[in-house]
């Protein structure tokens, strides 16, 4: 063997930014994550050109998946054009030549921070969720090694206990987003800080979901048609946010997750959080030919 067989001609940057060895590692870890739904697979997590905590985990997965023929959508808190989403989308385009889209229905890969789109994802789509803290047990066990033992033993007693304590103290479970959920009846995972509204969308979903925490170096996944059950007590139902009767002041849409906009007079108005879904409605009202996808919720109620 010669030196030049060990290396290759100098290039400023690899396709998809990550070099081949980084991508191979990502691929190996993603496969394990799919094979053991909800289990947190440790990975090396390379540095990428955005800061840790800004979606580096999701970005590494997306960079591994993209091809020039891919169509990619990036959302942050529901919006395609928020600061971080647009910066990530620009970067993805530059290093992968993939086409950008804002339309959920057009995308092959959707990288998202803290929301699942309102339009139903299909079997051929991949949702990549950015995860700040992959460990649902962190509030009851900050030591990662101990938490891992608890997952190994499927020992979720302490987690149940804190949910129960919330019930006793406040009359309801106070978990806002990141609602801990049992995957495939074995591993409790965090669905990432999506609102409670979005968690039921994961249950037996048609799409593949990959959740990746770059700073904490863990990947977990929910394959299509997999059970995702929020931890609830038999006699205390799971409660989504009370947004069913709110109407978006821009698009007039009712029955979806809303952003609350405080008004000067002390009241609130609302806009639909899935920004592009709202935009599609507005464009349709203006007479443009727009296809609206089937949604998980209809008139504020979950479609089953």
């Amino acid at each position, binding site marked *: 063997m010669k030196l030049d067989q060990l290396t290759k001609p100098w290039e*400023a*940057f*690899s*396709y*998809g*930014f990550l070099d*081949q*060895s980084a*991508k*191979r*590692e990502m*691929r*190996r*870890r*993603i*496969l*394990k994550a*799919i*094979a*053991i*739904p909800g*289990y947190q*697979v*440790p990975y090396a997590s390379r540095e990428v050109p955005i800061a840790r905590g800004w979606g580096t985990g999701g970005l590494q997965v997306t960079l*591994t998946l993209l*091809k*020039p023929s891919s169509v990619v959508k990036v959302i942050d808190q529901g919006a395609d054009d928020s600061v971080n989403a647009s910066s990530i989308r620009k970067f993805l*385009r*530059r*290093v*992968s*030549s993939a086409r950008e889209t804002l339309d959920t229905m057009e995308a092959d890969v959707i990288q998202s921070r803290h929301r699942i789109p309102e339009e139903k994802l299909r*079997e051929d789509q991949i949702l990549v969720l950015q995860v700040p803290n992959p460990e649902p047990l962190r509030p009851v066990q900050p030591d990662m090694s101990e938490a*891992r*033992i608890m997952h*190994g*033993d499927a020992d979720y007693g302490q987690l149940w206990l804190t949910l129960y304590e919330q019930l006793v103290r406040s009359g309801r479970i106070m978990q806002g987003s990141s609602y801990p959920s049992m995957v*495939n009846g*074995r*591993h409790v995972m965090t669905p990432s800080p999506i609102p409670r509204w979005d968690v039921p969308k994961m249950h037996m979903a*048609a799409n*593949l979901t990959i959740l990746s925490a770059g700073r904490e170096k863990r990947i977990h996944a929910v*394959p*299509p*048609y*997999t*059970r995702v059950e929020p931890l609830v007590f038999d006699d205390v139902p799971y409660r989504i946010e009370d947004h069913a009767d709110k109407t978006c002041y821009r698009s007039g849409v009712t029955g979806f997750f809303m952003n609350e906009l405080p008004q000067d007079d002390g009241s609130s108005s609302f806009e639909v959080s899935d920004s592009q879904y709202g935009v599609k409605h507005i464009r349709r009202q203006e007479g443009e030919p727009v296809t609206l996808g089937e949604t998980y919720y209809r008139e504020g109620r979950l479609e089953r």
Partner: protein
Amino acid sequence: MTQTLLVPTAEDIRANATFDALMWGLARPGLVQTLAFPGMLALAESLLDRECTFFCCDEALKEGIAATGAQAVPIAEAEYVFISLENGLQFSDLSDLLVGNLLYPDASATIFAPAVIGGATGSGTRLRLSGPGVNGSLDIAIGGVDPSFWALRSKAARYPLGWDLYLTDGDRLVGFPRSTEIEVL
């Protein structure tokens, strides 16, 4: 970085397309995926490098895989196992395969083996799959794999421990992650 768009090399294209099949293979157990670049070596090249261990009983393939930098080791230590499941003799060691441990169930083996992949009514052992990735249940016929293998698999897998399996047939590939329940019909 320049503002021009980066385009993939031939190696990038091969590895990305191959991984697509591998990923959907595990995400949708039993659904046949098409390999744009058939052959065990292409599968190995998309996943393996010097950070991996493998076992392979085919000498020519073994040499090809070793060129990725992966280290050839005895079957009981191998993360990636390239083997034939055609008859019982060759898979008598399968009970020693890495299945991971409760802390790290991912410290386990992945098997790659040739097979004859039939549809729901093809010849071979007829299997009924259910579990994550399967919408309800799915029937598939697998030839070229010793029928007793399936019993061995269900014995080895104590979920989440276990190993994951890929079968290939020319440009066709199917995956069987450990999470899949397999009923022999």
